[in-house]
């Protein structure tokens, strides 16, 4: 329970030190363990060789795919960092995290259209009312203001959920999970009613360049610069917040012994509400990024709940560094599987989800609590 939040990218002490030690001692595991290891190394070699062959085949495509994968990773990290943060501090599995993601995106879209659409002429209004999210040009401010408003509202919504539904049953983790599932069911239905089932997207500022060129490969500017940049800033910011500030110290102490911190005269509930605010806010921010980079539609909440789950299961619940590594692994697997799963005439790309599953299985086979996870 102790070193959960603060194992930054460097990894908590001991987390990275003993990657081979299973968390639970397994009777007679010695021999089998080596067999597992050999198998894993073999799999890793095959994967690396396969990607290397493909990369040598078409190097600029390889760069593009890798960068696209990393930008997906960055988005996954932004969303999952909030999820893992909330879990790390409060042991709450927030199953409504995907809902907060999608709602954040929809809110920003709403604000962008309501506040700034008129600028680009009345014609767009009728167009976007039809569903497709019209053309429309928006400058940087007209992207950032909706973003800020949406993100803050989602953060406050997070506090509301925590105060109303989760505060009084602290420690009942299953019940809290069920409560957040119920909230997500209602919210998903309401969003379907309010925003319809058609995919929409938030318009990136038109002053942004379409793409950047690296060597002979081309990658979207927004994905690469904004999304990856956001992830780096958020990762660093969270790390500094929890390692270097007084708030971070209180939070870490609160994780270890809530009653003691409380007895020292610190309002622990306030601290927890703050953490829930940040966690929800990150989901909302992810939603705005995802809504601009990909699209917003019913089902995205499930998709991002799943992504967050997989990222934190791989990385270890509650660990920020784990979330980063899990996100990179998941993003790259997604990206490579979409392109490189073609063997001669056999196009196996629609089996790509199996690779995600395999990733999960392999990590859990080696470390049942995830790469940086530790027993509660």
């Amino acid at each position: 329970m102790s070193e959960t939040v603060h194992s930054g990218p460097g990894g908590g002490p001991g987390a990275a030190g003993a990657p081979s030690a299973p968390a639970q001692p397994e009777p007679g595991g010695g021999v089998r363990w080596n067999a597992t290891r050999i198998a894993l190394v073999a799999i890793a070699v095959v994967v690396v060789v396969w990607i290397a062959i493909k990369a040598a085949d078409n190097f600029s495509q390889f760069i593009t795919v890798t960068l696209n994968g990393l930008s997906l990773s960055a988005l996954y990290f932004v969303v999952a960092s909030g999820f893992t943060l909330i879990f790390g501090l409060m042991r709450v599995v927030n199953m409504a995290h995907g809902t907060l993601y999608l709602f954040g995106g929809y809110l920003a879209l709403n604000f962008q259209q309501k506040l700034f659409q008129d600028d680009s002429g009345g014609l767009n209004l009728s167009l976007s009312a039809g569903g497709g999210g019209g053309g429309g040009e928006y400058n940087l401010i007209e992207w950032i203001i909706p973003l800020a408003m949406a993100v803050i509202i989602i953060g406050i919504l997070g506090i509301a959920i925590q105060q109303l539904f989760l505060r009084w049953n602290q420690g009942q983790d299953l019940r809290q999970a069920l409560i957040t599932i119920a909230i997500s069911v209602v919210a998903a239905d309401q969003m379907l009613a309010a925003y319809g089932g058609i995919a929409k997207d938030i318009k990136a500022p038109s002053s942004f360049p379409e793409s950047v060129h690296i060597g002979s490969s081309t990658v979207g500017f927004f994905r690469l610069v904004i999304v990856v940049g956001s992830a780096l800033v958020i990762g660093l910011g969270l790390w500094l917040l929890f390692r270097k500030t007084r708030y971070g110290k209180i939070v870490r102490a609160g994780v270890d012994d809530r009653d003691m911190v409380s007895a020292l005269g610190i309002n622990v509930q306030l601290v927890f509400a703050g953490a829930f605010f940040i966690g929800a806010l990150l989901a909302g921010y992810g939603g705005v990024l995802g809504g601009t980079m990909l699209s917003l539609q019913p089902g995205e909440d499930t998709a991002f709940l799943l992504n967050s789950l997989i990222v934190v299961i791989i990385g270890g619940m509650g660990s920020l560094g784990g979330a980063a590594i899990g996100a990179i692994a998941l993003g790259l697997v997604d990206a490579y599987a979409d392109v490189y799963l073609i063997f001669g005439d056999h196009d196996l790309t629609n089996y790509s989800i199996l690779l995600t599953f395999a990733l999960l299985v392999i990590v859990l086979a080696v470390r049942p609590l995830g790469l940086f996870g530790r027993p509660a």
Partner: protein
Amino acid sequence: MSLAPEAATVEAEARTAYHGVLTRNGWISLGVVVGVAILAAFAPFISEFWLSQILTKALWLGLAAASLIFLSAYAGMVSLGQVAVYGIAGMTYANLVAADGGNPAAWSPWLAVIGAIVAATAAGFLFGFIASRSEGIYFLMLTLAFSVLVYYFFSQVTQLSGFGGVNNLDLPGLVGDPGADPEPLYFTSLAVCVGLYLVMRYVARTPFGLAMQGLRDEPARMRALGFNVRLHRTLAFTFAAFIAAFAGILAVWYNRRISPGSINLGQTIDILIIAVIGGLYRIEGAWVGALAFALLDNYSREWTPEIGNILGPERFNTLLGIIFLIIVLVSPGGLVGAWESMVERLRRRNGGGGAPRTTTTPGPEGGPAATTVK
């Protein structure tokens, strides 16, 4: 797993008390027998709509939820992976028998049933093996991930799921054509559910079942006693997968089709809601929950008030979600738990029911009481 401390206490008290001539488990068995007898005897007098839309549906939904409850009550594992397993069973069946696309290698329906159950149980073994080292909330998350992964798998691999699902499945002669005459399928479902219910109760009493309950309560002690924790948990999950596989088969027989949309997260949550409505600690509750769900599904649209876009006939999921929320907030023991605590309260008020509670009856089976009787 601290879902329902108060409901669990109520159960412990109720269980150790006499209810007149019969023990608590005796009453439940009697209730089940009477319930099944009524369901069987009155079938000819029930309208076809009710038989098909309410009762048959409640039977297979209840079976899926029962597999979840079995795991949660006896092994302490709350799994969201049951829909993944039953989806695999349904999809396997759909791909083995003749369907509208024409399947040159079509198997006979009964052979396909066996194939589907074997495939789903094997998948359950795999999932169980992977998840067996996780506990509590980690287990819940991991099985949820399985469930969603299976959904994405089938929606991506259209060779298996067709573009609009696999339709017009060939059914065994036993159930005939449920569209024309729902009765055979109803009786088949009833028989399957009763049979598997008895199997579940039996398994819970075998040495394996007792070990499972020991692992649920005291994993560390059981490990010290030499029990293989991982193996037991894996096998428990596999057994539940075997049960869920039957639910998958009944579901495709009922719908006569299967599509990825019918095994998505929504369905996973529906099964969870049914299990929670029924209370997570009694297998019988699964069918109570399923009946409530089917009734709600069919009739709520008629009486739900229409409030703008927020509530109304179109917004069934909102209503369902709110009901689910209320149950988890107010009575974590579900309908069965609410009923039991009410009976208990009445009894205490009427007869000063404290006296008989001193006579501890262990009950005929090592049921879920072990959760709380320490």
